[in-house]
């Protein structure tokens, strides 16, 4: 049982963090109308920044997480500026542009940070193992999980209990309608991509204790985020969270137990859900 | 004649002759138990709807009454949540729009869109998919019928709104439908176009069944022999055309929508 406990915990934490990132992706697509294929690159950028900024002290940890979020937001801003000129040209051109930026970004990240997997240096207090109810848990995983749960709860509360949250949900559902109530669409597009980038950077930073960050992070997290968005859909944050936890568990436990099948599992689930889905995905024409 | 309170759960029965309904079951289009809701809002709740070859059946009602939904359900572009639809005795509820079109159910659209990138003539050619080996005779004749012969070689996107409606009609007729569903064909038409529309509708063959969703009462008066009035998704009234048009409750319902229709005209 214990052999699966830590990977299980990892899976839930990883899943929740991916859910945060996937929320950013859905936001960008539904409200911003941009399929952001550079999303994984932003997650990886956040991860790299966090891994190199955190030197083992609590202030540096805080700085690392903040820096990652800011870098992600900045990346989102760059994407917003880049895609702004392509507004009239349709989804494909914007997606291809973000694709090109993702390729450039991946190259830059590997050039700057090297090709090894990086892990952050955490404060000594987090580098220990806690024993709860007779089972050992690494403190850093618990911290990441706690952070993920807090962020997800705040996110849910904001989305469903505040006026701003309702506006965001309305924009994701129908971008053009929102313009009708006086919201400037260009401001929405920029804000949405910046927020999406910030979420990606934050998620990337918090994922580093679990799986580290390396050259494979960007394409893997992009793909997983896409799977979560497709499987969970929006309109139901619980659905997305469930899908995300499923994805996280497959990536951690599944990779240990059925390594050959794990990738197919996720993609088959996505394919199956797409085949049986009745309602179109948010932001996409039926 | 008393008007039933529209929120009553019981369905107001159709006044159609059972013999006619039987005929429709064998040779026409019949829908039973149609219920369509959108996020807990009832859009359509119709226990039965039948049309036989040769019928000219109008569906009227204020905005939001469920008329377009009914048309979309019959055409197959909206999937029926509950209920059964049969055509010539065969159940077609699960069949998609393309299958139904090939079976003989044609339609026009409320907002006529053309095929971008194609000429007007090509659009009509596309309408008669199963006439691939036919000469251009049928498309050219249809263009002449709707008055677009001069535009045949021009890009379809250059057409005005009224001409697009005519093109949509030609495209629908090119499929040689046995049941034609018309979704507000008169909306936004100038008087000249309206006259032409009435002429065209008058030339439709006697064996064709036509279901007309319309706000414009002149078109309804000219074409329909049977009218169903929908309100809040349910049947408010139905009966022979002159009977329904004379009903005072229908006038009230329709006066609102007619005014709305006039206001909406450019």
């Amino acid at each position: 049982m214990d052999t699966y406990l830590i990977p299980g915990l990892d899976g839930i934490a990883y899943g929740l963090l991916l859910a945060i990132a996937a929320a950013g992706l859905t936001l960008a697509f539904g409200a911003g109308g941009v399929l952001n294929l550079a999303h994984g690159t932003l997650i990886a950028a956040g991860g790299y920044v966090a891994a190199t900024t955190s030197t083992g002290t609590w202030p540096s940890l805080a700085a690392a997480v903040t820096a990652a979020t800011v870098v992600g937001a900045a990346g989102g801003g760059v994407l917003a500026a880049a895609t702004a000129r392509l507004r009239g040209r349709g989804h494909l051109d914007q997606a291809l542009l973000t694709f090109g930026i993702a390729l450039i970004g991946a190259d830059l990240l590997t050039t700057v940070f090297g090709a090894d997997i990086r892990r952050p240096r955490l404060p000594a207090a987090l580098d220990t193992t806690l024993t709860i109810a007779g089972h050992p848990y690494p403190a850093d995983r618990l911290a990441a999980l706690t952070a993920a749960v807090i962020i997800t709860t705040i996110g849910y509360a904001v989305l469903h209990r505040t006026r701003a949250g309702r506006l965001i949900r309305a924009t994701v559902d129908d971008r053009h309608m929102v313009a009708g109530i006086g919201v400037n669409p260009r401001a929405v597009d920029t804000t949405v991509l910046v927020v999406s980038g910030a979420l990606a950077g934050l998620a990337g930073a918090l994922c580093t204790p679990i799986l580290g960050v390396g050259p494979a992070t960007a394409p893997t997290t992009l793909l997983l985020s896409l799977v979560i968005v497709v499987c969970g859909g929006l309109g139901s944050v619980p659905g997305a969270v469930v899908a995300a936890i499923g994805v996280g568990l497959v990536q951690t436990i599944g990779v240990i137990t059925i390594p050959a099948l794990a990738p197919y599992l996720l993609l088959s689930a996505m394919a199956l859900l797409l085949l049986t889905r009745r309602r179109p995905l948010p932001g996409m024409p039926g | 004649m008393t008007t039933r309170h529209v929120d009553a759960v019981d369905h107001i029965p159709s006044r159609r002759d059972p013999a006619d309904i039987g005929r429709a079951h064998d040779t026409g289009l019949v829908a039973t138990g149609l219920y369509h809701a959108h996020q807990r809002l009832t859009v359509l709740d119709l226990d039965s709807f039948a049309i036989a070859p040769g019928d000219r059946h109008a569906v009227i009602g204020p905005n939001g009454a469920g008329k377009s939904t009914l048309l979309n359900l019959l055409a197959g572009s909206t999937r029926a949540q509950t209920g059964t639809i049969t055509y010539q005795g065969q159940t077609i509820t699960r069949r998609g729009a393309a299958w139904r079109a090939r079976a003989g159910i044609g339609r026009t659209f409320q907002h006529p869109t053309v095929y971008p990138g194609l000429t007007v003539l090509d659009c009509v050619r596309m309408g008669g998919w199963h006439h691939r080996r036919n000469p251009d005779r049928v498309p050219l004749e249809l263009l002449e019928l709707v008055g677009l012969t001069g535009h045949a070689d021009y890009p379809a996107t250059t057409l005005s709104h009224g001409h697009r409606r005519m093109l949509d009609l030609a495209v629908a007729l090119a499929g040689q439908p046995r049941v034609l569903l018309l979704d507000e064909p008169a909306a936004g038409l100038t008087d000249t176009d309206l006259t032409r529309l009435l002429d065209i509708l008058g030339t439709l063959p006697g064996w064709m069944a036509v279901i007309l969703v319309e706000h414009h009462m002149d078109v309804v008066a000219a074409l329909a022999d049977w009218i169903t009035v929908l309100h809040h998704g349910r049947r408010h009234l139905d009966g022979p055309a002159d009977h329904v048009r004379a009903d005072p409750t229908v006038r009230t319902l329709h006066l609102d929508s007619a005014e709305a229709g006039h206001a909406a005209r450019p």
Partner: protein
Amino acid sequence: MTARLPLPHRWDDLRRWVPWLLPLGAATTLAAASDGYWPATVARMLPLALLAVSVATVTGAAGLPTLGQVAPYAAGAYTTARLAMAGHTLAPVHLTAAALAGAFTAGLLGMLLVRHRGTVVLMLSLAVAELTTITATQWRTVSGGTDGLAGIPAPHLLPGTPPLTADRPVLLYATAVTVAATAATMLLLHRHHLLLTAVRGNETRAAASGHPVTTYLWLVHTGAGAIAGTAGALLIHTHRWITPADVGFDTAALALLAAVIGGTHSPPGAAVAAVLVLGVRDVAAADWPGHAPLLLGALFVAAVYLLPGGLTAALTRLRAEIRRVRATRRPEPLPAASRRTS
């Protein structure tokens, strides 16, 4: 009035493709004429060129942007490799088997992909590209794992002819296959040009007129899979080795880039663009090794910004501009017939 109306616009789409024959012919002639480096290098670019044709077909004609044609490409390549290593070395057999394998793979995947549109397809096809590499890596009996397959026997054109090992014959053979496959694609797409344009432009109206839209798109996708499979066979015939990396995401991205640069509605444009992109990449790889993704990404960004519609559309705009300039120079008014768009 029953006279048949003239249809001057009908052959426009084919006429658009004629300009590509010139650089294609020039490149091949030059390569075949020179020695050493060029014939082999150009020959090795042709499999990707044909893959780009396949991607352009699905992205342009079917309107489904795809990174997933590497799956039928891989199917064709590994079928060819296994046939050759099992002793069956006839090129026509390879080409047929590869095309069938590609069509079968694309047919299967198409059943999922063609139900969706636009960027959802791009997303799904990204997953397909990833899965292709994963499958190729894991299916060791077919693919040889991460090490791949090497020393694959050369094909024979006909029974009794010598194997195609020398650079110049391989180049001529690969060019012939690429040109033939591209020409076949162009002719088929032209024949159904009206149908495909209509279905892409207004799917709802087409369906309401009885057209089985999803079936049409599936047919295009499957046919493109046959082309991709053929490209896979060419990969083996020109390289005689293969690793899972050859049929993965990078290849898919290259093919899509070539299709975008060449113009998604122009299969021959995509082929030429593929050769161009690979040429640029090879030059860059010599000077800045290890930065191929950067170059590729920059090319993508540049292509999207500067060439909406690809080189084909740019050429069309150029021709229209030249025509306009010429027309404004003429003193007399234009005849009424010129009002029609070409």
